[in-house]
């Protein structure tokens, strides 16, 4: 689950800059943040702590990707 959802985003873009692992991106059309690369979330909560409107929900679980023999 990691970073779960972004609700009530005002499009300030701070979470996009803040995420150390570049998980969040801003949709150029809607001007809102969305979860672009959830597999790279390290559950550090920085995005949530920097969000001015408390829009981000994060859960502590992460399902480890299945290891495959080539990819």
């Amino acid at each position: 689950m990691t970073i779960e959802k972004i609700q009530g985003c005002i499009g300030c873009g701070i979470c996009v800059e803040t995420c150390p692992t570049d998980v969040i991106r801003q949709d150029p059309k809607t001007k809102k943040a969305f979860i672009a690369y959830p597999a790279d979330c390290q559950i550090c909560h920085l995005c949530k702590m920097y969000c001015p409107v408390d829009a981000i929900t994060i859960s502590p679980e992460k399902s480890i990707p299945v290891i495959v023999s080539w990819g």
Partner: protein
Amino acid sequence: MKTSKNQTDISRRTFMTIAGGAAGIAAMAAMGLTPNRAEAHSNIPKVDADKMSSVESETDVLVLGSGMAGVFAAVKAHDAGSKVMVVSKGRLGSSGLTPFAKGIFAYDAQTATVSAKDFLDKVSRSALGTNNPVYTRQLLEHSLARVNDLKEWGFFASPLYNKCFSKPLKERNIEVKERIVITHLFKEKGRIAGAAGFSLDEEKIYFLKARSVILCTGSGAFKPNGFPVCDLTHDGTVMAYNIGAKVTGKEWNDGHPGKSKNPADCYGGWGDMFDQKPGVTGVGVVHDLGVELNYKAYVKGNPVSMGGAPGQVKTDAVAGGPYVPAGFEHQKPPQGEKGQGPGGHSAGGKGPGGRPPKEGGAPPGMAGELVGGSSAGMAIHKSEGIVPINDKCQSNIPGLYAAGDALGSYMVGSIYTQVGSSLAGSAVQGAIAGEAAAEYSKGVDMPEISKAEQNRAQEEILAPLKRTEGYSPAWVTQTLQGIMIPNFVLYIKKESLLKAALAFIEELRDHHLPMLRAADLHELRLAYETANMITTAEMKLKASLMRTESRCSHYRLDYPDMDTKNWNAWINIYKGTDGSMQLEKQPFDSWPD
């Protein structure tokens, strides 16, 4: 796999909400369009590599990285008269390990209960000689001044550091470029000439000319679960190694465990650490964060846990294992063993925010059953990185400096010896490197980066975007984690397994690294990070094989004892003239040739 699951969840919710046909089709279409990069598929680039534009810029001092070391390097280089530019892969004060470090050491000679000499002696005893006393002393002498600088910037007023780091840079009008991944350093006529990299947001390649470069790029790991280090992959170290810099400390390990429940949850795994405002820690000397717990898990198997009441003697201690010098045994619960933060260890002193540490048991958040490897790939802070040739954080390449976790200064030695020293050390070294780089820059002309070098760098940067076939960085990273993270490879070492792991890593180096592909700029970043992790893994295995003894955070099952006759030396790694990895010894009390 993860992506698709998440998308399905969202779609189901959307379905319930809209309960209508047309919108349902729209939701399904969204599902189908979702690329899944963990899946094997051909590369369909979303970025046109041929249309990338390039941006050129120049400065006196180029600071790479924007954590604690970076901000001090920039400020002090500016104050010493240089034009400074800060370039970071992330955001100022919000990337790398800096945002999570909450305890900072300050040594005040006026009020200290321990004399400087006693402190230095004790550190050397605990570090079993592995520390560089010149850098340990520097920390003592400068830490208070740096803490006072930080107070002035408002560092201690918030748990988040972007605002207080922005203040001194804005006041000085220092240019900060964020979200630019630097991948190459340039050396021209035997000295540093600049750097190149790409933007995560725009289709642009940056060529940055500079009289001097300071690497404040932090350390790195193998993107482990449970430690907020997944954006650090030894980028600075590998870039510098590629142009001939010497690198050290790759055999040491940070033995940080994670919680067995939700092991990937960095935030929860650290109790309320990330929520706290930073605080000044006391001055204490310990012998912590090595691989003792990993040894116990290796011998006994899971579950391993820590804690217990204060003063309680551990009855389940195992025989043998890493040697702990007399006077540093854990009489109390081993609270320092996990430390209080990647950069702020509060064991023995006051907790971050000036609060006393919790009484008894494990550190906050670390009670209960544990799993290993949450900081896999990282060494003890400041024991790995660029080899300094003097006390000015200078590398063997003229004009190239490093500070903080990017510098192998051995300030604490190869095991945690100083409470709260990690943040302080980065601040102190950042300032020293900044002043030294500014001084150097005054004496040299602005270098030129040849067109041929620029073209070569550009080709290399764009290569993963241009590959229609290849390997996804996510898969190669997972494979590398599977090779390197097991307890019996990285922590409890022996020759046969180190060699076996090395064979796998050499395969990744020779066959997979040249075939890494990327569909967008995010994945391009992952491709570079993966390449850097492969180089780091090779360094770690080779240095571990070479060090035929056990000491501090390096433990060899086949050489369990300390060998002071042959191994009172650090291991330096450099690129040979034929491009191969070379290793050499540097005696503890010397500087490199």
